[in-house]
């Protein structure tokens, strides 16, 4: 009798998604379990695929800025910045220094809002709803800044080829600094809850281990890689004005969900510091230059998105439509991490581990 029961429960395949209470986005995982221990994970993608890269046939290279912003709504400004860097390199445009600093300010605001959003969702994944509410309350302050300075809450659309569209006045910068002080204070208040609480530790420490060697072999990027102790950050390349600002990549050595949470939490504070530095150093002058001509040649640009390294390959032939646009997103690079993290874990840990790589299906599938 005992043997018969064991045989029947030996292997079960459980579908996870595409519509699931924890995931805000549609992704389908086929999880094979033995008893309650996960043995195998097979993802099925394609629920959000739209075919954005092909839109280059219809839209010209200026209009494509609006399209690439909608690859992912959460980090839209950084996508546009990466694309615009590529086009500027092809057309040999020198961007005014003030525009570079403004790009840093808005991209770091986007990083803060993305990380706060993630910290909230992560807390929600193990059922800590009040922390979710608290982080999203802080995040609304960032969205207020976005709305006041650019006119939209999420998709800010400030980048144009040759600079930025909007300028920040002295008053606005002073107000941003005040708000950042409040955001920093509110975020640090939540630190002890998130990292020292007994139940939170129980759900995150030692879950979803990804040793640093394996992370490098799989090509993992961003906070997921930095939580495995590898100090790799594309901002070290010094694009926009990052080469004039002072910062160190945040790393943690625990390699688990707790470390990933810690890295993102510390990056919020790091981004606040970067915005303060940028505002103190910002030079006066023009915010964009006039653009003439059309791009020609091919180029690869890389920037650091909240989720990791973002790579754009652009090939242009001198006409108003591009020849090829290839987008490699960090979330796509991080999906293989799940195959190493999930096997051996309990089924109830799946939401926590899946969220720990910060999945953005809209980025992954474009």
């Amino acid at each position: 009798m005992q043997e018969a029961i064991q045989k029947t429960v030996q292997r079960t395949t459980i579908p996870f998604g595409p519509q699931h209470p924890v995931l805000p986005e549609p992704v389908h995982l086929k999880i094979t379990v033995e008893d309650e221990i996960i043995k195998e994970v097979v993802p099925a993608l394609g629920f959000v695929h739209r075919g954005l890269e092909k839109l280059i046939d219809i839209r010209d290279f200026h209009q494509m800025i609006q399209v690439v912003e909608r690859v992912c709504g959460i980090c839209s400004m950084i996508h546009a910045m990466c694309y615009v860097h590529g086009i500027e390199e092809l057309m040999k445009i020198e961007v005014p220094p003030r525009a570079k600093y403004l790009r840093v300010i808005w991209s770091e605001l986007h990083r803060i809002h993305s990380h706060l959003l993630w910290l909230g969702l992560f807390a929600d994944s193990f059922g800590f709803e009040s922390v979710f509410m608290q982080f999203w309350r802080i995040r609304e302050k960032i969205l207020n800044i976005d709305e006041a300075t650019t006119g939209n809450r999420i998709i800010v659309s400030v980048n144009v080829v040759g600079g930025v569209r909007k300028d920040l006045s002295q008053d606005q910068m002073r107000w941003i600094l005040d708000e950042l002080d409040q955001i920093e204070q509110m975020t640090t208040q939540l630190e002890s809850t998130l990292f020292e609480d007994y139940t939170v530790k129980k759900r995150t420490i030692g879950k979803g281990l990804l040793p640093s060697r394996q992370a490098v072999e799989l090509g993992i990027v961003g906070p997921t890689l930095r939580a495995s102790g590898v100090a790799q950050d594309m901002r070290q390349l010094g694009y926009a004005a990052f080469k004039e600002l002072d910062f160190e990549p945040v790393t943690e050595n625990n390699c688990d969900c707790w470390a990933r949470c810690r890295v993102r939490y510390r990056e919020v504070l790091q981004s606040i510091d970067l915005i303060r530095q940028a505002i103190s150093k910002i030079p006066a002058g023009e915010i964009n230059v006039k653009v003439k001509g059309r791009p020609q040649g091919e180029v690869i640009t890389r920037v650091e998105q909240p989720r990791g390294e973002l790579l754009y390959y652009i090939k242009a032939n001198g006409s108003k439509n591009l020849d090829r646009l290839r987008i490699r997103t960090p979330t796509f690079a991080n999906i293989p991490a799940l195959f190493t993290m999930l096997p051996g874990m309990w089924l109830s840990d799946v939401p926590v581990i899946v969220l720990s790589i910060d999945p953005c299906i809209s980025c992954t599938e474009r």
Partner: protein
Amino acid sequence: MKKMLGKIIASTRMKSPWILHFDCGSCNGCDIEVLACLTPVYDIERFGMVNVGNPMHADILLVTGTVNHRNKKVLTNLYDQMPAPKVVIAIGACGLSGGIFRDAYNVVGGVDRVIPVDVYVPGCPAKPEAIIDGAVLALKKFEVLRQQKLAV
């Protein structure tokens, strides 16, 4: 007796409609605005609305984003599983017509190509205020549906 019971059910549905959110290929802009509606600043729960994960518990279906060839089956599945009376809210430019993606090869178009839509919320992304307004309009729709049922 039956009439009274119907009245009670209708009034409770107006006081506490449960919503189901499905991301149907949007860029996440509208999704995080839908989630923002649930958080303290906007707090859609003051209308008694609760976000549930099970379509069989839901009264209102919030759909964000364009429909593509793969997820249209998922969308119709969810819609069919919801008990009547049900109301569908399409959110964002993509949900209305396909928006900026309407020319892409894998895009079918707006949500109304697949399932009937009652309330359209424009914007790219739609603001939380607009989404809350759409949800309140959906509540009125329940009253209309009840009147129609009584007339029959």
